[in-house]
């Protein structure tokens, strides 16, 4: 039997301290927490930074380091610093060093790095070792080389290598959400289907139970399956909440691909143990012939400046789309004329909040809003150019009339300056897998004593 204590779905989302203490009292074999995902968008991977506040991360990580010392078991974080790039791993290691010094406790830390050299991945692409997953974007070697960060998602094999070092703490770069939970049960010979299924159910903390924001859960793995138990007061797992969690952020509710194979839960059975815990068995792990790891990459996609203005005049609210279309057309022409650019060199887009900002032309509803917020989005090749075009757009948003006859209108700017530079923007560029001869081939492990 292997007990994995999961404090929450991600470090930075907070956890219930009493429930964590309850988990420590129940003698876990490991504490595992996820540090990120792609869900907050390409900028974090593009820049190699965390989305969460350093202060919150440090407070929560310090609590887990205390709990680890009390339990005397390893503490592992996967996808450190939101994106799991090497710079984010370094950030997490710095935080860990500060806390270790403050807590007066020397530690052995295993650092697993997942960043890839874009030139190496471009060469792998040319040699056919990088292959697309469904709905992957078209890429070529230049696209791959233009990525500012590429990470490979480690699986249970790489986490197992880190665990074998006997480290107190493992700080891992990008891993699959499940690998940090499944690794120890797999190492100790628990049921492979159960290990991966329990890991998927547990990876979002208490989201697989009622009172989902309470965070802390324990998953106990054995030779035929697993038992999941939420630990906060008032949180209960039921066969329904647990089985429904396979739907979550997963395009196929029965199959989950991992490095080295896939999980199939078609035959899984969910039984209530009591009012709080659920036992799951019958899930199957299907090994693959090739060992592949998924790649994520983000690359610069220009610089952006945004402006916001409010329309409250009923005439303009009623005709906002024509007003916006006219501005886009006139400002695009003026930008080409004054800056000597072609329309392909930049973009100006106005989105109408309160009318169609969510879906644009796909929006089936129409109504009579009280007011409309207009977001002007300028994208161009350089920061200076995006701000310059933002300044060309400014007078239109402030004063553009629907007809030439009417008195010059003025609309409500929220801020001065009205132009808000957003800096460099990024886009996801890879939805591919990389074939490896050896699981550690794309990863590196370093031991650090702090």
């Amino acid at each position, binding site marked *: 039997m292997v007990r994995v204590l999961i404090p929450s779905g991600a470090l930075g989302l907070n956890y219930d301290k009493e429930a964590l203490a309850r988990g420590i009292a129940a003698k876990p074999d490991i504490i595992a927490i996820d540090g990120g995902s792609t869900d907050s968008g390409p900028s974090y991977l593009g820049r190699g930074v965390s989305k969460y506040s350093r202060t919150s991360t440090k407070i929560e990580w310090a609590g887990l380091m205390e709990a680890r010392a009390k339990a005397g078991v390893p503490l592992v974080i996967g996808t450190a610093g939101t994106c799991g790039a090497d710079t984010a791993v370094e950030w997490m290691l710095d935080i860990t060093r500060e806390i270790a010094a403050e807590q007066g406790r020397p530690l052995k830390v295993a650092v697993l790095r997942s960043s890839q050299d874009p030139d190496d991945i471009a060469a792998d692409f040319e040699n056919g070792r990088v292959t697309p997953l469904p709905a992957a*974007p078209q890429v070529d070697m230049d696209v791959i080389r233009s990525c500012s960060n590429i990470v490979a998602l480690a699986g249970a094999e790489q986490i197992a290598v880190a665990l074998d070092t006997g480290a107190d703490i493992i700080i891992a770069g990008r891993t699959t959400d499940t690998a940090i939970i499944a690794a120890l049960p797999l190492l100790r010979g628990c049921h492979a289907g159960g290990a991966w299924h329990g890991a998927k159910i547990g990876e979002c903390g208490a989201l697989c139970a009622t009172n989902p924001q309470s965070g802390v859960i324990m998953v106990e793995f054995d030779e035929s399956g697993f038992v999941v138990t939420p630990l906060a007061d008032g949180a209960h797992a039921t066969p329904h909440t647990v089985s429904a969690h396979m*739907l979550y952020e*997963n395009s196929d509710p029965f199959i989950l691909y991992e490095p080295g194979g896939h999980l199939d839960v078609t035959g899984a059975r969910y039984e209530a143990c009591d009012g709080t815990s659920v036992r799951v068995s019958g899930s199957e792990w299907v090994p693959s012939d090739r060992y592949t790891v998924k790649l994520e990459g983000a690359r610069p996609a220009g610089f952006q400046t945004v402006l916001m203005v409010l329309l409250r005049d009923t005439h303009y609210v009623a005709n906002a789309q024509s007003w916006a279309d006219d501005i886009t057309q006139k400002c695009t022409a003026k930008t080409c004329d004054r800056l000597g650019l072609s329309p392909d060199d930049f973009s100006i887009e106005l989105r109408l909040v309160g009318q169609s900002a969510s879906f644009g032309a796909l929006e089936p509803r129409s109504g009579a809003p009280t007011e409309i917020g207009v977001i002007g989005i300028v994208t161009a090749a350089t920061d200076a150019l995006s701000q310059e075009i933002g300044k060309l757009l400014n007078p239109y948003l402030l004063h553009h009339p629907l007809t030439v006859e009417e008195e010059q209108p003025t609309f409500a700017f929220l801020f001065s300056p009205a132009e808000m530079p957003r800096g460099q923007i990024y886009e*996801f560029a890879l939805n591919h897998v990389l074939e490896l001869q050896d699981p550690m081939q794309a990863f590196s492990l370093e031991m650090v004593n702090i």
Partner: protein
Amino acid sequence: MRTLNELVQKIRSKNAGPFWLTIDIFCGSETAYRDVAENLRTADVAKALGANSQDLKRFDIPSLNVIKISLPRPTVQGARDDRDMHGASWAALLAELQV
């Protein structure tokens, strides 16, 4: 005609990675599940989402009274023309769909 929202308990849309969108229709009861499974046409769902029918993966799951629809994201998450970083609002298009 009724809206899908009137028939079911909850509809949730999320990213399934940066390139896929997934929408879970929690019917809430076996009766509602059977009603929706029979009357919700995949072609209508595709049209509401601005997608091609053949790109949609549909899972009718009676054990959960859930119908799940997955599709390649109409715009890649966070791309310049994306309007919804977490895929949060797509559920609304199905909630308001006439069934």
